Protein backbone atom coordinates (compact mmCIF):
# COMPACT_ATOMS: atom_id res chain seq x y z
CA UNK A 1 0.00 0.00 0.00
CA UNK A 2 2.79 2.41 0.93
CA UNK A 3 4.61 1.53 -2.28
CA UNK A 4 1.41 2.15 -4.21
CA UNK A 5 0.92 5.56 -2.63
CA UNK A 6 4.56 6.53 -3.16
CA UNK A 7 4.42 5.51 -6.80
CA UNK A 8 1.27 7.50 -7.31
CA UNK A 9 2.72 10.52 -5.53
CA UNK A 10 5.72 10.39 -7.82
CA UNK A 11 3.42 10.24 -10.82
CA UNK A 12 1.38 13.11 -9.44
CA UNK A 13 4.52 15.21 -9.16
CA UNK A 14 5.56 14.44 -12.73
CA UNK A 15 2.09 15.27 -14.02
CA UNK A 16 2.06 18.55 -12.12
CA UNK A 17 5.46 19.41 -13.58
CA UNK A 18 4.28 18.60 -17.10
CA UNK A 19 1.13 20.65 -16.65
CA UNK A 20 3.14 23.59 -15.35
CA UNK A 21 5.43 23.51 -18.40
CA UNK A 22 2.56 23.16 -20.86
CA UNK A 23 0.53 25.91 -19.22
CA UNK A 24 3.55 28.21 -19.08
CA UNK A 25 4.60 27.84 -22.69
CA UNK A 26 1.05 27.76 -23.99
CA UNK A 27 0.25 31.07 -22.36
CA UNK A 28 3.56 32.64 -23.43
CA UNK A 29 2.87 31.54 -26.99
CA UNK A 30 -0.63 32.96 -26.92
CA UNK A 31 0.09 36.43 -25.62
CA UNK A 32 2.82 38.89 -24.78
CA UNK A 33 3.30 39.39 -21.05
CA UNK A 34 5.21 42.63 -21.57
CA UNK A 35 2.24 44.20 -23.34
CA UNK A 36 -0.01 42.99 -20.56
CA UNK A 37 2.23 44.61 -17.95
CA UNK A 38 2.78 47.86 -19.81
CA UNK A 39 -0.90 48.06 -20.55
CA UNK A 40 -2.95 47.84 -23.75
CA UNK A 41 -1.94 50.54 -26.22
CA UNK A 42 1.34 51.34 -24.44
CA UNK A 43 4.25 52.84 -26.39
CA UNK A 44 6.87 50.44 -27.74
CA UNK A 45 9.48 51.99 -25.47
CA UNK A 46 7.44 51.22 -22.38
CA UNK A 47 6.78 47.69 -23.55
CA UNK A 48 10.52 47.13 -24.10
CA UNK A 49 11.26 48.58 -20.67
CA UNK A 50 8.74 46.25 -19.06
CA UNK A 51 10.24 43.35 -21.01
CA UNK A 52 13.72 44.07 -19.69
CA UNK A 53 12.56 44.83 -16.16
CA UNK A 54 10.74 41.52 -15.76
CA UNK A 55 13.37 39.47 -17.54
CA UNK A 56 11.01 38.71 -20.41
CA UNK A 57 13.82 39.17 -22.93
CA UNK A 58 15.49 35.98 -21.72
CA UNK A 59 14.98 32.67 -23.59
CA UNK A 60 11.58 31.11 -22.71
CA UNK A 61 13.18 28.04 -21.16
CA UNK A 62 15.18 30.22 -18.76
CA UNK A 63 12.04 32.16 -17.87
CA UNK A 64 10.24 28.88 -17.19
CA UNK A 65 13.05 27.63 -14.96
CA UNK A 66 13.02 30.88 -13.03
CA UNK A 67 9.24 30.78 -12.69
CA UNK A 68 9.33 27.14 -11.59
CA UNK A 69 11.93 27.80 -8.89
CA UNK A 70 9.98 30.74 -7.54
CA UNK A 71 6.74 28.78 -7.62
CA UNK A 72 8.31 25.87 -5.76
CA UNK A 73 9.49 28.35 -3.15
CA UNK A 74 5.89 29.47 -2.78
CA UNK A 75 6.29 32.72 -4.67
CA UNK A 76 3.66 33.00 -7.38
CA UNK A 77 4.58 36.60 -8.21
CA UNK A 78 2.48 39.72 -8.39
CA UNK A 79 -0.86 40.10 -10.10
CA UNK A 80 -0.71 42.54 -13.02
CA UNK A 81 -4.34 43.56 -12.73
CA UNK A 82 -5.08 43.25 -9.00
CA UNK A 83 -1.63 44.62 -8.05
CA UNK A 84 -1.34 42.19 -5.13
CA UNK A 85 0.49 39.04 -4.22
CA UNK A 86 -0.92 36.17 -6.36
CA UNK A 87 -0.65 33.60 -3.60
CA UNK A 88 -2.73 35.58 -1.12
CA UNK A 89 -5.21 36.44 -3.86
CA UNK A 90 -5.66 32.79 -4.86
CA UNK A 91 -5.65 31.67 -1.25
CA UNK A 92 -8.48 34.06 -0.44
CA UNK A 93 -10.69 32.82 -3.29
CA UNK A 94 -10.01 29.14 -2.82
CA UNK A 95 -12.50 28.46 0.02
CA UNK A 96 -15.40 29.70 -2.12
CA UNK A 97 -14.58 27.33 -4.97
CA UNK A 98 -13.83 24.42 -2.66
CA UNK A 99 -17.12 24.98 -0.90
CA UNK A 100 -18.97 25.21 -4.21
CA UNK A 101 -17.25 22.07 -5.51
CA UNK A 102 -18.01 20.04 -2.40
CA UNK A 103 -21.60 21.31 -2.27
CA UNK A 104 -22.10 20.46 -5.94
CA UNK A 105 -20.68 17.00 -5.41
CA UNK A 106 -22.93 16.59 -2.40
CA UNK A 107 -25.91 17.71 -4.47
CA UNK A 108 -25.01 15.30 -7.28
CA UNK A 109 -24.68 12.41 -4.82
CA UNK A 110 -27.84 13.36 -2.95
CA UNK A 111 -29.79 13.23 -6.20
CA UNK A 112 -28.05 10.37 -7.99
CA UNK A 113 -27.80 7.80 -5.19
CA UNK A 114 -31.52 7.71 -4.29
CA UNK A 115 -32.49 7.90 -7.98
CA UNK A 116 -29.98 5.22 -8.90
CA UNK A 117 -31.21 2.96 -6.09
CA UNK A 118 -34.86 3.50 -7.05
CA UNK A 119 -34.08 2.91 -10.71
CA UNK A 120 -32.32 -0.34 -9.83
CA UNK A 121 -34.91 -1.62 -7.36
CA UNK A 122 -37.74 -0.80 -9.77
CA UNK A 123 -35.75 -1.49 -12.93
CA UNK A 124 -37.69 -0.77 -16.14
CA UNK A 125 -40.54 0.87 -14.24
CA UNK A 126 -41.78 4.41 -14.84
CA UNK A 127 -39.44 5.75 -12.16
CA UNK A 128 -36.47 4.13 -13.90
CA UNK A 129 -37.50 5.71 -17.18
CA UNK A 130 -38.05 9.10 -15.54
CA UNK A 131 -34.59 9.06 -13.97
CA UNK A 132 -33.19 8.03 -17.31
CA UNK A 133 -34.97 10.83 -19.17
CA UNK A 134 -33.65 13.38 -16.69
CA UNK A 135 -30.13 12.08 -17.21
CA UNK A 136 -30.30 12.00 -21.00
CA UNK A 137 -31.74 15.50 -21.26
CA UNK A 138 -29.38 16.73 -18.55
CA UNK A 139 -26.35 15.59 -20.50
CA UNK A 140 -27.45 17.57 -23.54
CA UNK A 141 -28.25 20.80 -21.68
CA UNK A 142 -25.44 23.42 -21.66
CA UNK A 143 -24.73 24.25 -18.01
CA UNK A 144 -24.83 28.03 -18.44
CA UNK A 145 -28.26 27.70 -20.10
CA UNK A 146 -29.40 25.54 -17.22
CA UNK A 147 -28.00 28.15 -14.80
CA UNK A 148 -30.01 30.89 -16.50
CA UNK A 149 -33.15 28.76 -16.35
CA UNK A 150 -32.57 28.42 -12.61
CA UNK A 151 -32.16 32.18 -12.28
CA UNK A 152 -35.37 32.72 -14.21
CA UNK A 153 -37.21 30.25 -12.02
CA UNK A 154 -35.86 30.88 -8.53
CA UNK A 155 -34.80 34.52 -8.66
CA UNK A 156 -37.15 36.17 -11.10
CA UNK A 157 -40.38 34.19 -10.92
CA UNK A 158 -40.30 32.81 -7.38
CA UNK A 159 -37.97 35.43 -5.87
CA UNK A 160 -36.49 32.84 -3.50
CA UNK A 161 -32.81 33.22 -4.24
CA UNK A 162 -30.44 36.09 -5.01
CA UNK A 163 -29.25 36.36 -8.62
CA UNK A 164 -25.56 36.81 -7.94
CA UNK A 165 -22.89 37.36 -5.31
CA UNK A 166 -21.34 35.17 -2.66
CA UNK A 167 -22.07 36.72 0.72
CA UNK A 168 -24.62 34.24 2.12
CA UNK A 169 -25.34 30.53 1.82
CA UNK A 170 -28.35 31.28 -0.39
CA UNK A 171 -25.94 32.58 -3.03
CA UNK A 172 -24.54 29.08 -3.30
CA UNK A 173 -27.77 27.21 -3.94
CA UNK A 174 -28.18 27.83 -7.65
CA UNK A 175 -24.46 27.53 -8.50
CA UNK A 176 -24.45 24.24 -6.59
CA UNK A 177 -27.36 22.86 -8.63
CA UNK A 178 -26.09 24.24 -11.93
CA UNK A 179 -22.62 22.79 -11.42
CA UNK A 180 -23.69 19.53 -9.75
CA UNK A 181 -26.41 18.43 -12.16
CA UNK A 182 -23.91 17.90 -14.94
CA UNK A 183 -22.08 15.10 -13.12
CA UNK A 184 -25.29 13.57 -11.73
CA UNK A 185 -26.04 11.25 -14.69
CA UNK A 186 -22.64 9.55 -14.43
CA UNK A 187 -23.18 8.82 -10.73
CA UNK A 188 -26.74 7.70 -11.28
CA UNK A 189 -25.70 5.24 -13.94
CA UNK A 190 -22.93 3.86 -11.74
CA UNK A 191 -25.24 3.43 -8.75
CA UNK A 192 -28.00 1.84 -10.84
CA UNK A 193 -25.69 -0.63 -12.56
CA UNK A 194 -23.95 -1.45 -9.28
CA UNK A 195 -27.22 -1.94 -7.44
CA UNK A 196 -28.69 -4.19 -10.13
CA UNK A 197 -25.61 -6.36 -10.05
CA UNK A 198 -25.44 -6.47 -6.26
CA UNK A 199 -29.17 -7.10 -5.78
CA UNK A 200 -28.95 -10.33 -7.75
CA UNK A 201 -25.97 -11.56 -5.73
CA UNK A 202 -26.01 -14.52 -3.36
CA UNK A 203 -25.36 -12.48 -0.25
CA UNK A 204 -28.46 -10.41 -0.86
CA UNK A 205 -30.46 -13.63 -0.94
CA UNK A 206 -28.78 -14.59 2.32
CA UNK A 207 -29.78 -11.28 3.84
CA UNK A 208 -33.38 -11.75 2.70
CA UNK A 209 -33.35 -15.30 4.06
CA UNK A 210 -32.51 -13.82 7.44
CA UNK A 211 -35.87 -12.07 7.42
CA UNK A 212 -34.39 -8.59 7.17
CA UNK A 213 -36.85 -6.02 5.84
CA UNK A 214 -36.34 -4.78 2.27
CA UNK A 215 -35.12 -1.43 3.60
CA UNK A 216 -32.22 -3.05 5.49
CA UNK A 217 -31.41 -5.39 2.61
CA UNK A 218 -31.23 -2.52 0.14
CA UNK A 219 -29.57 0.16 2.20
CA UNK A 220 -27.28 -1.88 4.42
CA UNK A 221 -26.36 -4.94 2.38
CA UNK A 222 -26.68 -3.77 -1.20
CA UNK A 223 -25.87 -0.05 -1.21
CA UNK A 224 -22.62 -0.41 0.69
CA UNK A 225 -21.26 -2.71 -2.00
CA UNK A 226 -22.79 -0.85 -4.93
CA UNK A 227 -21.51 2.50 -3.78
CA UNK A 228 -17.82 1.60 -3.59
CA UNK A 229 -16.94 2.66 -7.15
CA UNK A 230 -18.85 5.90 -6.50
CA UNK A 231 -16.18 6.93 -4.01
CA UNK A 232 -13.39 6.82 -6.56
CA UNK A 233 -15.57 8.57 -9.12
CA UNK A 234 -16.45 11.25 -6.54
CA UNK A 235 -12.84 12.26 -6.18
CA UNK A 236 -12.31 12.44 -9.94
CA UNK A 237 -15.55 14.37 -10.43
CA UNK A 238 -14.72 16.83 -7.65
CA UNK A 239 -11.53 17.67 -9.52
CA UNK A 240 -13.59 18.10 -12.66
CA UNK A 241 -16.13 20.30 -10.86
CA UNK A 242 -13.40 22.57 -9.49
CA UNK A 243 -11.96 22.96 -12.96
CA UNK A 244 -15.37 23.51 -14.51
CA UNK A 245 -16.57 26.04 -11.97
CA UNK A 246 -15.31 28.95 -14.10
CA UNK A 247 -18.51 29.20 -16.17
CA UNK A 248 -20.89 28.85 -13.25
CA UNK A 249 -18.96 31.19 -10.96
CA UNK A 250 -18.94 33.78 -13.71
CA UNK A 251 -22.69 33.45 -14.37
CA UNK A 252 -23.47 33.95 -10.70
CA UNK A 253 -20.56 36.33 -9.97
CA UNK A 254 -19.59 33.93 -7.20
CA UNK A 255 -16.27 35.25 -5.95
CA UNK A 256 -14.13 32.13 -6.19
CA UNK A 257 -11.17 30.80 -8.14
CA UNK A 258 -13.19 30.37 -11.33
CA UNK A 259 -14.44 33.95 -11.31
CA UNK A 260 -10.92 35.12 -10.45
CA UNK A 261 -9.60 33.11 -13.39
CA UNK A 262 -12.22 34.65 -15.67
CA UNK A 263 -11.31 38.17 -14.54
CA UNK A 264 -7.59 37.51 -14.93
CA UNK A 265 -8.14 36.05 -18.38
CA UNK A 266 -10.08 39.10 -19.56
CA UNK A 267 -7.29 41.30 -18.17
CA UNK A 268 -4.46 39.10 -19.47
CA UNK A 269 -3.17 38.67 -15.93
CA UNK A 270 -0.61 35.93 -16.66
CA UNK A 271 0.68 35.19 -13.15
CA UNK A 272 -2.82 34.70 -11.76
CA UNK A 273 -3.97 32.50 -14.67
CA UNK A 274 -0.89 30.35 -14.31
CA UNK A 275 -1.34 30.00 -10.58
CA UNK A 276 -5.00 29.00 -10.89
CA UNK A 277 -4.32 26.46 -13.66
CA UNK A 278 -1.47 24.99 -11.61
CA UNK A 279 -3.53 24.84 -8.44
CA UNK A 280 -6.52 23.18 -10.12
CA UNK A 281 -4.27 20.63 -11.84
CA UNK A 282 -2.49 19.71 -8.64
CA UNK A 283 -5.86 19.42 -6.88
CA UNK A 284 -7.16 17.16 -9.63
CA UNK A 285 -4.14 14.88 -9.46
CA UNK A 286 -4.30 14.71 -5.67
CA UNK A 287 -8.03 14.01 -5.73
CA UNK A 288 -7.70 11.11 -8.16
CA UNK A 289 -4.96 9.73 -5.94
CA UNK A 290 -7.22 10.16 -2.93
CA UNK A 291 -10.01 8.39 -4.78
CA UNK A 292 -7.85 5.36 -5.46
CA UNK A 293 -6.66 5.22 -1.87
CA UNK A 294 -10.20 5.58 -0.53
CA UNK A 295 -11.34 2.83 -2.85
CA UNK A 296 -8.60 0.53 -1.66
CA UNK A 297 -9.35 1.35 1.95
CA UNK A 298 -13.10 0.85 1.61
CA UNK A 299 -12.73 -2.53 0.04
CA UNK A 300 -11.84 -4.96 2.85
CA UNK A 301 -10.39 -7.41 0.36
CA UNK A 302 -7.82 -4.88 -0.83
CA UNK A 303 -7.23 -3.45 2.62
CA UNK A 304 -5.82 -6.63 4.05
CA UNK A 305 -3.67 -7.75 1.14
Amino acid sequence: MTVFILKRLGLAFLVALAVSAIAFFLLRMSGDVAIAIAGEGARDVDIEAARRLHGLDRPPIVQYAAWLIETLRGDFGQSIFFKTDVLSLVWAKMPVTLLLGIMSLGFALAVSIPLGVLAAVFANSWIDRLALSLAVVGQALPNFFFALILVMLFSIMLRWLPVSGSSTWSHYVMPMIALGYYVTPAFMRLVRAGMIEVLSSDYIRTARAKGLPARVVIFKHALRNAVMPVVALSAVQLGYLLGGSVVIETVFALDGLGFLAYQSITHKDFPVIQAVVMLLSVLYVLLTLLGDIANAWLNPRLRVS
Partner: protein
Amino acid sequence: MTDTSLSLDLAMEPTAGARMRKRLFGQKSLVLGSGLLLLIMLVALFAPLLATHDPYAQDLAHRTVPPFWYAKGSLEHILGTDNLGRDYFSRLLYGARISLLIGLSVMVISGIIGTTLGLLAGYFGGKADLLVTFLVTTRLAMPVMLVALAVVAMVGGSLPVIVLVLGFLKWDRFAVVMRSATQQARALDYVAAAEAVGASTPRIILGEILPNVLPQLIVVATLEAASAILLEASLSFLGLGVQPPLPSWGLMISEAKNYMFFSFWLIAIPGTMLALLVLAINLAGDGLRDIFAPEGR
Protein backbone atom coordinates in the same frame (compact mmCIF):
# COMPACT_ATOMS: atom_id res chain seq x y z
CA MET B 1 1.79 3.51 -14.56
CA THR B 2 -0.85 0.84 -14.80
CA ASP B 3 -2.01 2.22 -11.47
CA THR B 4 -3.63 5.08 -13.28
CA SER B 5 -5.90 2.83 -15.28
CA LEU B 6 -8.63 2.95 -12.65
CA SER B 7 -8.81 6.72 -12.63
CA LEU B 8 -8.65 6.86 -16.40
CA ASP B 9 -11.51 4.42 -16.79
CA LEU B 10 -13.56 6.28 -14.26
CA ALA B 11 -12.82 9.66 -15.71
CA MET B 12 -14.21 8.69 -19.06
CA GLU B 13 -16.31 5.73 -19.79
CA PRO B 14 -16.96 6.07 -23.49
CA THR B 15 -20.48 4.75 -23.42
CA ALA B 16 -21.56 6.53 -20.24
CA GLY B 17 -24.59 8.24 -21.68
CA ALA B 18 -24.83 5.87 -24.60
CA ARG B 19 -26.26 3.04 -22.57
CA MET B 20 -28.77 5.34 -20.90
CA ARG B 21 -29.99 6.72 -24.18
CA LYS B 22 -30.18 3.25 -25.64
CA ARG B 23 -32.43 2.12 -22.83
CA LEU B 24 -34.60 5.16 -23.22
CA PHE B 25 -34.96 5.31 -26.96
CA GLY B 26 -34.11 1.71 -27.86
CA GLN B 27 -33.56 1.07 -31.54
CA LYS B 28 -35.38 4.26 -32.45
CA SER B 29 -32.38 6.34 -31.42
CA LEU B 30 -30.72 6.25 -34.84
CA VAL B 31 -33.85 7.34 -36.70
CA LEU B 32 -34.68 9.98 -34.12
CA GLY B 33 -31.12 11.28 -33.71
CA SER B 34 -29.99 11.19 -37.31
CA GLY B 35 -33.31 12.58 -38.48
CA LEU B 36 -32.99 15.55 -36.18
CA LEU B 37 -29.31 15.96 -36.98
CA LEU B 38 -30.01 15.80 -40.72
CA LEU B 39 -32.70 18.43 -40.32
CA ILE B 40 -30.32 20.76 -38.48
CA MET B 41 -27.63 20.11 -41.11
CA LEU B 42 -30.02 20.94 -43.94
CA VAL B 43 -31.11 24.06 -42.12
CA ALA B 44 -27.47 25.09 -41.73
CA LEU B 45 -26.70 24.30 -45.36
CA PHE B 46 -29.67 26.17 -46.79
CA ALA B 47 -29.62 28.96 -44.21
CA PRO B 48 -29.32 31.67 -46.92
CA LEU B 49 -32.46 30.32 -48.63
CA LEU B 50 -34.46 29.77 -45.47
CA ALA B 51 -33.56 32.98 -43.68
CA THR B 52 -36.28 35.59 -43.83
CA HIS B 53 -33.89 38.46 -43.13
CA ASP B 54 -30.21 39.35 -43.23
CA PRO B 55 -28.95 37.96 -39.89
CA TYR B 56 -26.65 40.97 -39.45
CA ALA B 57 -29.08 43.72 -40.42
CA GLN B 58 -29.92 45.86 -37.41
CA ASP B 59 -33.26 47.59 -37.05
CA LEU B 60 -33.12 49.70 -33.94
CA ALA B 61 -36.75 50.68 -34.31
CA HIS B 62 -37.81 47.06 -33.84
CA ARG B 63 -35.73 45.81 -30.91
CA THR B 64 -36.60 42.72 -28.81
CA VAL B 65 -39.80 42.05 -30.69
CA PRO B 66 -41.16 38.79 -29.21
CA PRO B 67 -41.86 35.65 -31.31
CA PHE B 68 -45.13 35.40 -33.22
CA TRP B 69 -46.99 33.41 -30.57
CA TYR B 70 -46.77 36.35 -28.16
CA ALA B 71 -49.46 39.03 -28.36
CA LYS B 72 -46.89 41.62 -29.43
CA GLY B 73 -45.23 39.31 -31.92
CA SER B 74 -45.80 39.22 -35.64
CA LEU B 75 -45.14 36.86 -38.53
CA GLU B 76 -42.72 39.44 -39.93
CA HIS B 77 -40.19 38.17 -37.37
CA ILE B 78 -41.19 34.57 -36.62
CA LEU B 79 -38.91 34.27 -33.59
CA GLY B 80 -38.78 37.98 -32.89
CA THR B 81 -35.71 40.21 -32.89
CA ASP B 82 -32.75 40.66 -30.55
CA ASN B 83 -31.62 43.74 -28.65
CA LEU B 84 -30.26 45.25 -31.88
CA GLY B 85 -33.39 44.49 -33.85
CA ARG B 86 -31.80 41.62 -35.82
CA ASP B 87 -34.15 38.86 -36.94
CA TYR B 88 -33.77 36.05 -34.42
CA PHE B 89 -34.95 33.27 -36.73
CA SER B 90 -32.34 34.13 -39.36
CA ARG B 91 -29.60 34.40 -36.75
CA LEU B 92 -30.63 31.05 -35.34
CA LEU B 93 -30.31 29.39 -38.76
CA TYR B 94 -26.85 30.82 -39.32
CA GLY B 95 -25.89 29.85 -35.77
CA ALA B 96 -26.43 26.19 -36.66
CA ARG B 97 -23.58 26.56 -39.17
CA ILE B 98 -21.16 27.67 -36.46
CA SER B 99 -22.05 24.89 -34.03
CA LEU B 100 -21.85 22.21 -36.71
CA LEU B 101 -18.61 23.58 -38.09
CA ILE B 102 -17.04 23.62 -34.63
CA GLY B 103 -18.28 20.14 -33.76
CA LEU B 104 -17.07 18.61 -37.00
CA SER B 105 -13.65 20.27 -37.23
CA VAL B 106 -12.77 19.82 -33.55
CA MET B 107 -13.81 16.20 -33.87
CA VAL B 108 -11.50 15.70 -36.86
CA ILE B 109 -8.46 17.36 -35.28
CA SER B 110 -8.77 15.80 -31.84
CA GLY B 111 -9.78 12.51 -33.46
CA ILE B 112 -6.60 12.38 -35.52
CA ILE B 113 -4.38 13.23 -32.54
CA GLY B 114 -6.12 10.96 -30.07
CA THR B 115 -6.56 8.02 -32.42
CA THR B 116 -2.92 8.12 -33.45
CA LEU B 117 -1.78 8.16 -29.83
CA GLY B 118 -4.24 5.45 -28.84
CA LEU B 119 -3.33 3.17 -31.74
CA LEU B 120 0.38 3.54 -31.06
CA ALA B 121 -0.02 2.94 -27.33
CA GLY B 122 -2.31 -0.02 -27.81
CA TYR B 123 -0.32 -1.64 -30.58
CA PHE B 124 3.21 -1.21 -29.34
CA GLY B 125 2.55 -1.28 -25.59
CA GLY B 126 5.61 -0.94 -23.35
CA LYS B 127 7.29 2.47 -23.42
CA ALA B 128 4.90 3.91 -26.01
CA ASP B 129 2.00 2.93 -23.81
CA LEU B 130 3.63 4.47 -20.72
CA LEU B 131 4.26 7.70 -22.58
CA VAL B 132 0.72 7.97 -23.95
CA THR B 133 -0.80 7.12 -20.58
CA PHE B 134 1.31 9.85 -19.02
CA LEU B 135 0.24 12.34 -21.69
CA VAL B 136 -3.40 11.48 -21.14
CA THR B 137 -3.05 11.78 -17.37
CA THR B 138 -1.42 15.16 -17.81
CA ARG B 139 -4.11 16.30 -20.23
CA LEU B 140 -6.82 15.19 -17.82
CA ALA B 141 -5.21 17.15 -15.02
CA MET B 142 -5.46 20.38 -16.99
CA PRO B 143 -8.77 22.19 -16.58
CA VAL B 144 -9.94 22.24 -20.24
CA MET B 145 -12.38 25.08 -19.87
CA LEU B 146 -9.85 27.32 -18.15
CA VAL B 147 -6.95 26.60 -20.50
CA ALA B 148 -9.18 26.99 -23.56
CA LEU B 149 -10.56 30.26 -22.21
CA ALA B 150 -7.09 31.61 -21.46
CA VAL B 151 -5.53 30.70 -24.79
CA VAL B 152 -8.52 31.83 -26.87
CA ALA B 153 -8.65 35.09 -24.93
CA MET B 154 -4.93 35.75 -25.42
CA VAL B 155 -4.82 34.93 -29.12
CA GLY B 156 -8.20 36.50 -29.78
CA GLY B 157 -11.47 34.71 -30.30
CA SER B 158 -12.17 33.61 -33.84
CA LEU B 159 -13.49 30.40 -35.36
CA PRO B 160 -10.10 28.99 -36.49
CA VAL B 161 -8.50 29.71 -33.10
CA ILE B 162 -11.34 28.05 -31.21
CA VAL B 163 -11.25 25.00 -33.48
CA LEU B 164 -7.49 24.63 -33.09
CA VAL B 165 -7.47 25.14 -29.32
CA LEU B 166 -10.34 22.72 -28.67
CA GLY B 167 -8.91 20.27 -31.19
CA PHE B 168 -5.57 20.21 -29.41
CA LEU B 169 -7.19 19.92 -25.98
CA LYS B 170 -9.89 17.34 -26.47
CA TRP B 171 -8.09 14.27 -27.80
CA ASP B 172 -7.89 12.51 -24.44
CA ARG B 173 -11.02 10.38 -24.72
CA PHE B 174 -10.06 9.28 -28.24
CA ALA B 175 -6.66 8.19 -26.94
CA VAL B 176 -8.04 6.27 -23.95
CA VAL B 177 -10.74 4.45 -25.89
CA MET B 178 -8.59 3.71 -28.93
CA ARG B 179 -5.82 2.43 -26.69
CA SER B 180 -7.97 -0.21 -25.01
CA ALA B 181 -9.81 -1.04 -28.24
CA THR B 182 -6.50 -1.57 -30.01
CA GLN B 183 -5.22 -3.77 -27.21
CA GLN B 184 -8.29 -5.97 -27.66
CA ALA B 185 -8.07 -5.98 -31.46
CA ARG B 186 -4.41 -6.91 -31.31
CA ALA B 187 -5.26 -10.09 -29.49
CA LEU B 188 -7.54 -11.21 -32.34
CA ASP B 189 -6.39 -14.22 -34.32
CA TYR B 190 -6.25 -12.69 -37.74
CA VAL B 191 -4.19 -9.76 -36.53
CA ALA B 192 -1.71 -12.26 -35.17
CA ALA B 193 -1.93 -14.05 -38.51
CA ALA B 194 -1.16 -10.87 -40.40
CA GLU B 195 1.86 -10.37 -38.16
CA ALA B 196 2.99 -13.93 -38.77
CA VAL B 197 2.68 -13.49 -42.53
CA GLY B 198 5.03 -10.54 -42.16
CA ALA B 199 2.73 -7.66 -43.07
CA SER B 200 4.29 -4.30 -42.34
CA THR B 201 3.36 -2.54 -39.13
CA PRO B 202 1.55 0.43 -40.73
CA ARG B 203 -0.34 -2.04 -42.89
CA ILE B 204 -1.46 -4.03 -39.85
CA ILE B 205 -2.45 -0.96 -37.89
CA LEU B 206 -4.35 0.72 -40.72
CA GLY B 207 -5.58 -2.39 -42.52
CA GLU B 208 -6.42 -4.77 -39.72
CA ILE B 209 -6.75 -2.86 -36.46
CA LEU B 210 -8.34 0.43 -37.51
CA PRO B 211 -11.37 -1.21 -39.18
CA ASN B 212 -11.84 -3.23 -36.02
CA VAL B 213 -11.85 -0.29 -33.66
CA LEU B 214 -14.00 1.84 -35.96
CA PRO B 215 -17.25 1.35 -34.02
CA GLN B 216 -15.68 2.62 -30.81
CA LEU B 217 -14.05 5.47 -32.76
CA ILE B 218 -17.42 6.55 -34.14
CA VAL B 219 -19.06 6.55 -30.72
CA VAL B 220 -16.26 8.64 -29.22
CA ALA B 221 -16.29 10.96 -32.24
CA THR B 222 -19.97 11.76 -31.83
CA LEU B 223 -19.61 12.29 -28.09
CA GLU B 224 -16.64 14.58 -28.66
CA ALA B 225 -18.39 16.58 -31.38
CA ALA B 226 -21.28 17.17 -28.99
CA SER B 227 -18.91 18.11 -26.19
CA ALA B 228 -16.97 20.50 -28.46
CA ILE B 229 -20.22 22.22 -29.44
CA LEU B 230 -21.05 22.72 -25.77
CA LEU B 231 -17.54 24.02 -25.05
CA GLU B 232 -17.67 26.55 -27.88
CA ALA B 233 -21.06 27.70 -26.64
CA SER B 234 -19.60 28.16 -23.14
CA LEU B 235 -16.60 30.10 -24.45
CA SER B 236 -18.80 32.33 -26.57
CA PHE B 237 -21.24 32.74 -23.72
CA LEU B 238 -18.40 34.08 -21.57
CA GLY B 239 -17.61 36.52 -24.36
CA LEU B 240 -14.22 34.97 -25.03
CA GLY B 241 -15.10 32.71 -27.95
CA VAL B 242 -16.72 33.59 -31.25
CA GLN B 243 -16.89 37.38 -31.50
CA PRO B 244 -19.90 39.51 -32.41
CA PRO B 245 -21.64 39.97 -34.72
CA LEU B 246 -21.34 36.25 -35.60
CA PRO B 247 -24.54 34.46 -34.55
CA SER B 248 -23.09 31.69 -32.34
CA TRP B 249 -25.84 30.25 -30.16
CA GLY B 250 -23.67 30.64 -27.06
CA LEU B 251 -23.00 34.25 -27.95
CA MET B 252 -26.70 34.88 -28.62
CA ILE B 253 -27.49 33.67 -25.10
CA SER B 254 -24.73 35.87 -23.74
CA GLU B 255 -26.07 38.95 -25.54
CA ALA B 256 -29.58 38.21 -24.31
CA LYS B 257 -28.46 37.80 -20.69
CA ASN B 258 -29.21 41.39 -19.74
CA TYR B 259 -32.73 41.17 -21.15
CA MET B 260 -33.65 37.87 -19.54
CA PHE B 261 -35.95 39.54 -17.02
CA PHE B 262 -38.30 40.65 -19.76
CA SER B 263 -37.44 38.51 -22.75
CA PHE B 264 -36.46 35.05 -21.55
CA TRP B 265 -37.27 33.62 -24.96
CA LEU B 266 -34.08 35.29 -26.24
CA ILE B 267 -32.20 32.78 -24.06
CA ALA B 268 -34.61 29.88 -24.25
CA ILE B 269 -34.60 29.58 -28.06
CA PRO B 270 -30.85 29.24 -28.74
CA GLY B 271 -30.43 27.23 -25.50
CA THR B 272 -33.05 24.73 -26.62
CA MET B 273 -31.43 24.50 -30.05
CA LEU B 274 -28.08 23.70 -28.44
CA ALA B 275 -29.64 21.01 -26.28
CA LEU B 276 -31.51 19.53 -29.27
CA LEU B 277 -28.40 19.46 -31.44
CA VAL B 278 -26.32 17.78 -28.73
CA LEU B 279 -29.09 15.27 -28.03
CA ALA B 280 -29.43 14.52 -31.75
CA ILE B 281 -25.71 13.87 -32.15
CA ASN B 282 -25.60 11.63 -29.11
CA LEU B 283 -28.61 9.63 -30.28
CA ALA B 284 -27.25 9.27 -33.80
CA GLY B 285 -23.91 8.09 -32.39
CA ASP B 286 -25.64 5.42 -30.30
CA GLY B 287 -27.61 4.27 -33.30
CA LEU B 288 -24.53 4.03 -35.49
CA ARG B 289 -22.74 2.04 -32.83
CA ASP B 290 -25.58 -0.48 -32.76
CA ILE B 291 -25.26 -0.94 -36.51
CA PHE B 292 -21.51 -1.35 -36.47
CA ALA B 293 -21.25 -3.37 -33.30
CA PRO B 294 -24.44 -5.24 -32.49
CA GLU B 295 -24.83 -6.31 -28.90
CA GLY B 296 -22.78 -9.34 -27.97
CA ARG B 297 -20.20 -9.04 -30.70
